[in-house]
């Protein structure tokens, strides 16, 4: 049987985590079909057809798919589901919103947020904010799975030439209406895929003080993260939140500044390759996961840090 991968895109380009989802899908079965639902999304479909691991692309287009509402997307997927043993999507807000609506229609118990494929029916997934890993076996004939993108490498993005088919659009779900999306545009690397992440917590004391984080991030070409406390306090917008209910990041370098390290925050960053903690409380739990801990007042340490970075002339871009 084959795997149906639901592509996340913006009608023009693939969202970067689609590449990670394709890798995970290909570990389940090599016959991966990519489903691109959208409006005027030919460019995204073409990009999907160029992924060497994708064997076929199916596009479904209609005006009411423009804004990715789960109520409109789910019937498209369930209609195609007969031909597939697995339906796969990324476990980000797009997939988390959509997949359970599909699974319930198919009377399938979804396996959420897998970090490893053991076999076509057995997967590893974190539970309790990543404080335990559960190995689970799905007994449903059709399996609905969301994958944690940072746990799988992105697939090759060019060289393939899969055929593109179109399937018929479904009806519009009239009870839900899209109003607007406020995307925070930034020239920085995406938080989910950045090589370096600099995060601030409650210790930053104000939104204005995040400038200290910004200047370090500029120097390191880093994305900016935050603890839930910092977002709740209004220092920075919600799309920066790292943690159990925010984003999961696995950068080469994660610098936690003024973050105490609640287990809910650790859940989103403790798989990072190198972790640095800067905190004036030497007992803060963040030090238990840090490779390098600096017990210091961040308002003194960050300007010094910037100065030291300026002295180096080998910053990798």
């Amino acid at each position, binding site marked *: 049987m084959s795997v149906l991968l639901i592509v996340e895109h913006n009608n023009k380009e693939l969202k970067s985590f689609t590449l990670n989802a394709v890798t995970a899908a290909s570990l389940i079965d090599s016959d991966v079909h990519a489903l691109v639902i959208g409006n005027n999304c030919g460019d995204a479909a073409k990009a999907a057809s160029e992924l060497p691991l994708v064997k076929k692309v199916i596009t479904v287009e209609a005006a009411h798919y423009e804004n990715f509402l789960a109520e409109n997307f789910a019937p498209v997927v369930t209609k195609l589901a007969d031909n597939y043993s697995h339906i796969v999507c990324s476990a980000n807000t797009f997939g988390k919103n959509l997949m359970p609506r599909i699974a*319930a229609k198919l009377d399938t118990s979804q396996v959420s947020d897998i970090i490893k494929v053991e076999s076509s029916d057995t997967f590893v997934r974190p539970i309790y904010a990543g404080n335990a890993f559960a190995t689970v076996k799905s007994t449903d004939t059709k399996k609905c799975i969301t994958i944690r993108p940072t746990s799988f490498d992105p697939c090759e993005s060019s060289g393939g030439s899969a055929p593109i088919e179109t399937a018929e659009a479904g009806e519009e779900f009239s009870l839900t209406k899209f109003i607007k999306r406020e995307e925070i545009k930034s020239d920085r690397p995406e938080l989910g895929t950045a090589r370096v992440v600099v995060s601030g917590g409650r210790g930053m004391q104000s939104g204005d003080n995040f400038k200290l984080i910004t200047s370090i991030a500029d120097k390191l070409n880093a994305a900016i993260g935050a603890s839930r406390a910092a977002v709740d306090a209004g220092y920075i917008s919600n799309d920066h939140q790292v943690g159990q209910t925010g984003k999961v990041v696995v950068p080469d370098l994660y610098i936690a500044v003024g973050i105490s390290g609640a287990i809910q925050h650790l859940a989103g960053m403790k798989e990072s390759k190198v972790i640095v903690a800067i905190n004036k409380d030497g007992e803060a739990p963040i030090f238990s996961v840090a490779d390098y801990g600096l017990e210091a007042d961040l308002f003194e340490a960050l300007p010094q840090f910037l100065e030291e970075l300026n002295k180096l002339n080998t910053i990798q871009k």
Partner: protein
Amino acid sequence: MKILVAVKRVIDYNVQIRVKEDGTGVVTDNVKMSTNPPDDNAIEEAVKIKESGKATEVIAVTIGEEKAQETVRKALAVGADRGIHVKAEGVIEPLAVSKILQKIADKEKPDLVFMGKQAIDDDCNQTGQMLSALLDWPQATFASKIDVKDGKLEVVREIDEGLETIEINTPAIVTCDLRLNEPRYASLPNIMKAKKKPIEQMSASDLGIDIAPKIQQIKVEEPPKRKAGIKVSSVAELVQKLKNEAKVI
């Protein structure tokens, strides 16, 4: 307008989770249990809507063992009017939970069903969406702001890219983010009053729902431990280590 709020009893968010040595799960004996945190936000929002005069009744429902009733009792103490406790033992998967909630919704005919966006124990993030699918109702997941309008709700959703606003017709499902509101604490007089509020009990089998898990748990283990780190004494030392030892800058 009637609001049904689903609440789940979970290990308290402050408890350091310990994995059982035999790999069958995590230690729950003598561990503090609480209401799943975003479910508290769901109750708070429902009670606030009732206080604003836009809802007439708030019903709290939970599914689980005898002690799960505590979560309903807590909801009653912060303003829910009555409770429903569906008794069920063991692991109840989100699909089974949503089927039970569908039965309750069929019976109670709420205009809105609220719940937390995710339970902090299994981290599934499925139940609200599944219930919407079974009922064919609109879904507003990860809500951080709700405006009740005539027969409609305008909901701001937290998404990876920022914020999204949608308008949904009732009846509808909303799953709540922690930033939706600040849950209140129950006052002692209200805790006493809540003891007199009714909780209807039933079992999953009374409702005709098969709750047998469809996902087998093979094993539960501790995640790999990180190698112990070091404390550095100065910023200069930190930068030197990052450059020459970790080679990440």
